[in-house]
């Protein structure tokens, strides 16, 4: 069955968790025991309605404060498709968790409180969606019940949002606006009777009509080797297979491939998935590949089609979203993880990010937690990369602090030559 991965975004108290809880309730995805637990907790909080945010705010600290601290992954399905929703936090201080949730999603739902309109967090989240190149955004203007279901208020917000959309440097996404009340379930799965001026789809109908396959961008094939499989058993004494996940495009038996970074070439002899051999494997498959020639390949190497060799770089220009409490400063050294490869890198410069008219915040040559900036890096060894725009899987990386081992930031490669 088709799977659609969705991230929610929006500021604190815009009703993200409530919207998801409502979707679950209206699609009958909340089982009796879960519903009883929500009823009990809602009563305990002194509410006379069901607090659906309790369906997704799974941590004690979240329920206590009524906020979302970290991503929750929620699963439900209709007859048409399966959904995975990453319910992400709205607080600026949890932006890193918002990026974590959005990074594995195909589309996003941005919530706006109808009483507040487009605010800084809306712009920030829309910017992150664009940075991730999400092709489809649903803007749910929530709490319409608190503005008397006013069409004027809705239209005002739509035009405000369209302004930031026009200023955005990424133009390929589709934006759909829906007026809703998540609390009362209006235009979530059921059409509202209080907003007859709105003739568009409910949120659920809109999601049902999205074709998830449209989001799979076919790019050049990259096969980062995770591990070499050498059983050395009687049946497979000379077997030497390269295990990995195929990114971007396909691979076929007989095709000429080049190993990066050694630039040696060979042909694909076999493509295994478990005990079966295939003529061709499509993008996204985890397979084991054997080659015609015995060449030296280890974890961190990447197989590509010989006529699609990526370029080699010693410096990178990238957009980095910083996720660590220890600020990023010029001269600092980090481990850069690019696919299965880890190399040392040194931060060269950090500048204020200027993309379109978006103001990501003034950077005084250091990047603090949850800030996004323009960073140039020097690499200890060449890497064969692409820009995130051209080949997302081969155009992104994480920075690991070698002292604390934490994932300190995520980077999107903008250009390889500085």
């Amino acid at each position, binding site marked *: 069955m088709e799977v659609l991965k969705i991230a929610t975004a929006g500021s604190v108290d815009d009703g993200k968790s409530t919207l998801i809880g409502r979707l679950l309730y209206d699609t009958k995805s909340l089982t009796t025991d879960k519903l009883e637990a929500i009823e009990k907790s809602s009563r305990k909080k002194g509410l006379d309605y069901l607090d659906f945010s309790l369906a997704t705010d*799974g941590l*004690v600290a979240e329920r206590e404060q009524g906020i979302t*601290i970290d991503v929750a992954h929620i699963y439900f399905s209709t007859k048409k498709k399966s959904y995975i929703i990453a319910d992400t936090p709205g607080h600026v201080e949890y932006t890193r968790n918002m990026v974590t949730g959005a990074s594995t999603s195909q589309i996003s739902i941005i919530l706006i409180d109808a009483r507040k309109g487009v605010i800084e967090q809306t712009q920030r989240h829309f910017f992150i969606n664009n940075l991730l190149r999400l092709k489809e955004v649903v803007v749910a203007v929530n709490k319409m019940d608190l503005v008397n279901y006013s069409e004027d208020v809705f239209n005002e917000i739509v035009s405000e949002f369209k302004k930031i959309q026009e200023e955005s440097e990424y133009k390929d996404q589709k934006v759909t606006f829906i007026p809703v009340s998540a609390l009362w379930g209006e235009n979530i799965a059921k059409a509202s009777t209080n907003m007859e001026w709105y003739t568009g789809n409910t949120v659920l109908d809109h999601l049902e009509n999205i074709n998830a396959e449209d989001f799979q961008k076919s790019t050049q094939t990259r096969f980062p080797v995770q591990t070499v*499989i050498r059983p050395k*058993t009687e*049946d497979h004494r000379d077997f030497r297979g390269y295990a*990995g996940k195929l990114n971007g495009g396909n691979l076929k038996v007989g095709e000429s491939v080049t190993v990066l970074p050694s630039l040696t070439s060979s042909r694909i002899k076999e493509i295994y998935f478990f005990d079966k051999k295939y003529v061709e494997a499509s993008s996204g498959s*985890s397979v084991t590949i054997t080659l015609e020639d015995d060449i030296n390949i280890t974890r961190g190497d990447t197989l590509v089609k010989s006529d699609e060799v990526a370029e080699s770089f010693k410096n990178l220009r990238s957009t980095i979203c910083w996720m660590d409490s220890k600020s990023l400063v010029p001269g600092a050294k980090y481990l850069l993880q690019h696919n299965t490869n880890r190399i040392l890198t040194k931060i060269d410069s950090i500048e204020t990010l200027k993309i379109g008219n978006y103001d990501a915040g003034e950077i005084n040559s250091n990047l603090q937690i949850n800030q996004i900036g323009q960073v140039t890096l020097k690499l200890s060894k060449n890497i064969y990369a692409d820009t995130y725009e051209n080949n997302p899987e081969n155009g992104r990386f994480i920075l690991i602090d070698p002292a604390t*081992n934490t994932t300190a930031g*995520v980077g999107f490669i903008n250009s390889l030559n500085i």
Partner: protein
Amino acid sequence: MNNILNQNPLESEAIYIFREVVTQFENPVLLFSGGKDSITLVRLAEKAFFPSKIPFPLMHIDTGHNFPETIEFRDKLVKEMGLQLIVRKVQDDIDNGKSVEETGKYSSRNSLQTNTLLEAIEEFKFDACIGGARRDEEKARAKERIFSVRNDFGEWDEKNQRPEVFDMLNGRIEIGQNVRVFPISNWTELDVWKYIDQEKIKIPSIYFSHEREIFERDGLIWTASEHVFKDELEEVKTRNVRFRTVGDVTCTAAVESHARTIEQIVHEITNSPISERGARIDDKRSEAAMETRKQQGYF
């Protein structure tokens, strides 16, 4: 030879995760309970490393209060596949005074498993423990990363988790820390059953409808067993039941069912008004039962 491979994305993701585990860690182990999720993990691991054998042992943290069918199944699977099985017993930690048996009507060794697990991690110096937990099971699990770092006391710092972006997994840790790895995080209960059906994976008989001596308490169906406390007013009856989730006898409730095939099970859970863990006695202790156990180092 087969034509074009179009892999199920969930299967591809799980295999990718297994391969990251064996290369990023020195000494991984697969936590095996004998339940359907850990059995599914064994199948995925087999696929990830074929034609090599599964390159890590299985470990069962045994409460001693097992369903005999699960243990029989475990031993048969290990033998047939030539796997290495480590068993560490909660009973041993009770005997040597490291754990204290619970008492009373609801006593269970479920939470004592944490102690035995942490002891075993130290004993074997495991740096990665692979488990079959899924995010759709429970609200605290819905919050957890695929590579979930534990400190040297086995504790989960749920408010300060390591960011996990795209498919890039960072398994770097300090000595003494360990990582819990959940390859089927994004699978739902239904995904697991469909996979078991598709792959013709064998599972213990207690997942299918059978006659069993039970008694009812708090709206749940408890197994009548020497390990389960039952007061005299609680009447033992024979019913057609099956288990939807399998822990040990003291923490898992049965459900009334006539489902004898996987097809019937899929039909039953698709239409069930109750969630999978609605039959977990261990989750019902409090609203935050799972989160609390996880913080302390539970699976």
